[in-house]
């Protein structure tokens, strides 16, 4: 009976998907929703592709799953993925339905599914992924994700013991997803070890998971990402099976050491956050059985998706568009830090990070601004900081509290106004840090800057 319901749901959902596509609509969520409505335990009956890979974690899951899909495709595997759709239960199911025949057979070899952490309980117990990649568990939207202990709890509760884990050894929180008897490999970075212990704005784990003593750190890269140990017991960060030992920023290459020895890959982006993403992807692909040549080929052909990182030159202006993810304090702080550390001293940061949905007929919660470290914006190489959007006054106060000089801050509620506030005499490299779900505002700023670049160029 249940199986009949499953087939009925599958056929209705597939029909809906077909019709939606015919109408040119985005069919990456609703078909899954219909399927669950008609058959609440749809996922339990579905036959997934032979290998199912779930990618989760606070930051980097889209980049990792895109990278995995791209490299696997280049190596001749057929892939089911939800990279253009939603990463909650209905999105994952929609992607699987699309690649399931009307007889319930999977059409593809491998499923690479990006899974929202909070959807874990609705997905893993039935789908039982063969692999789970978790890049990090960090502070995220306080409304949706509460705190990291909660996220760790639900992922852990949802995952079957049969899932092989690919975890970040430099993140104790995701490392501790491994249960006794569970297969697991760890990845990490030993290159560019930070010197000393730079105090962190926030750390999501400070106590030893074994004995509760305050953890000591060999070094910390950012927040709680780094190597830790306990002086009261034997606890220490896991030893990585795949470790990036060298990042050559001149040659745009990095070296990873594993049981296969040292291997080199193209460094397709030099932000340390992305280097972790590369380590995660390589670890998983190696576990799947791909060799260096197969993976390296993918790395030479792949680029970070344009919406996340884009560089444009216009006249005298160099424009870098960076996705900064509002409501996500650590992702945002990493972007501020990146801008501060990039060589050059004529930088301007334009921030378009207010949440779109939360500001339409609403007043966005700005608590996250205070979890986000704004001190990088005080760096003397950043000559100007422009906050634009409905919460610009809140950003101003936050930046002042972080020690950013008032004289270099400008604010405007209107994003198109930001370009007029820019002082091109002192700033030629403009970093636009924008929220993913405000593409039109990001585009407004980008186009404004491109026009301004052309004007100033002609003016010279």
């Amino acid at each position, binding site marked *: 009976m249940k199986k009949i319901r499953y087939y009925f749901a599958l056929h209705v959902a597939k029909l809906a998907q077909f019709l939606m596509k015919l109408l040119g609509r985005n069919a990456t969520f609703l078909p899954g929703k219909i399927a669950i409505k008609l058959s609440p335990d749809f996922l339990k009956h579905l036959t997934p592709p032979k290998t199912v890979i779930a990618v989760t974690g606070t930051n980097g899951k889209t980049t990792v799953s895109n990278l995995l899909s791209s490299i696997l495709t280049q190596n001749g595997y057929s892939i089911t993925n939800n990279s253009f759709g939603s990463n909650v239960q209905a999105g994952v199911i929609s992607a699987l339905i699309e690649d399931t025949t009307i007889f319930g057979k999977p059409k593809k070899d491998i499923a690479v599914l990006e899974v929202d952490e909070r959807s874990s309980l609705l997905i893993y117990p039935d789908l039982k992924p063969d692999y789970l990649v978790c890049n990090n568990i960090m502070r995220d939207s306080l409304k949706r994700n509460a705190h*990291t202990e909660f996220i760790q*709890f639900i992922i852990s509760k949802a995952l079957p013991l049969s899932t092989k884990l690919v975890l970040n050894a430099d993140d104790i929180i995701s490392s501790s997803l491994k249960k006794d008897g569970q297969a697991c490999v760890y990845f990490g970075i030993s290159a560019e070890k930070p010197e000393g212990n730079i105090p962190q704005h926030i750390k999501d784990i400070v106590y030893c998971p074994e004995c509760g003593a305050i953890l000591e750190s060999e070094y910390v890269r950012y927040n709680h990402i780094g190597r830790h140990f306990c002086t009261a017991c034997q606890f220490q960060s896991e030893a990585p099976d795949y470790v990036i030992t060298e990042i050559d920023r001149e040659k745009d290459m990095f070296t990873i050491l594993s049981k296969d020895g040292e291997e080199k890959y193209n460094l397709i982006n030099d932000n340390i956050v992305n280097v972790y993403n590369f380590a995660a992807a390589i670890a998983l692909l190696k576990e799947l059985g791909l060799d260096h040549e197969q993976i390296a080929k993918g790395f030479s052909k792949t680029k970070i998706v344009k919406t996340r990182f884009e560089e444009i030159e216009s006249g005298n202006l160099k424009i870098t568009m960076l996705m900064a993810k509002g409501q996500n304090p650590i992702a945002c702080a990493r972007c501020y830090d990146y801008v501060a550390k990039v060589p050059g001293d004529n930088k301007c940061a334009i921030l378009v990070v207010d949440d779109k949905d939360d500001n339409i007929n609403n007043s966005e919660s700005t*608590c996250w601004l*205070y979890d986000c470290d704004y001190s990088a914006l005080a760096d003397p190489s950043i000559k100007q900081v422009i906050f634009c959007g409905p919460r610009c006054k809140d950003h101003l106060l936050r930046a002042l509290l972080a020690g950013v000089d008032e004289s270099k801050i400008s604010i405007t509620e209107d994003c198109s106004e930001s370009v007029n506030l820019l002082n091109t005499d002192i700033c030629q490299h403009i970093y636009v840090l924008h929220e993913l779900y405000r593409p039109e505002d990001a585009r407004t700023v980008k186009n404004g800057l491109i026009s301004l670049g052309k004007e100033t160029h002609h003016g010279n």
Partner: protein
Amino acid sequence: MVIEILFDESCNLFGDGQNSAYLKATLPEAQFIYTKITDVPYFVEQDPDIIYIGSMSESVQRRVINKLMPYKERLFALVEKGTPILATGNAGEIFCKHIQYVTEELEIDGLGIFDINVKTDLFDRYNGKVLADFENFKLVGFRSQFSMLYGDNTDYAFTKVIRGIGINRDSKLEGLRRNNLICTHILGPILPLNPLFCEYFIALTGTKAEAAHKEAALSAYYQRIKEFEDPVVPC
């Protein structure tokens, strides 16, 4: 002036950690003592002028209660003496009588300053805003919590909300107060978001101080009041 920040290394969720930064910017001369969970609190032997504690995870909350239980009498004495103590988010729950953790199937006693019970359910998250009348100004803030409080706080509520909820979904009386111990479920940067409340809270020590970056803080504060007063904005 001596300000003790309790367990800042972990009781700092949702931006709460920056309340001490705002106090520091407002009171640059004050001495700040950051007590770790493994330390003996400063208040045990000394008299701090202000104590602050922020939001924490549920497991840390249980540990904090364990930690403070031996100093319960001393804390009571400080409260009776009128020491300004501010507890934001779920920090105030440690002063309640009893906490039930539904998801973890655990029940523990709190410090018991208030005859109020707490129920915490990891699968029932409440998000909301608070607009409240307080003394001669307004209070604004945000809430995100797994817990609700039950009991009668009529005589010792922190504030009556104009919009939003009180100690639970059926209440309009927010928070708990005894003398200068203020427990509020408003979390995050309550002090920078409410520069007038920051000045009020500091004034409880007998010292007058102007809130840091007051012009910028007031400008954001008045914008927020206007938005929260708009009936279109959900609370």
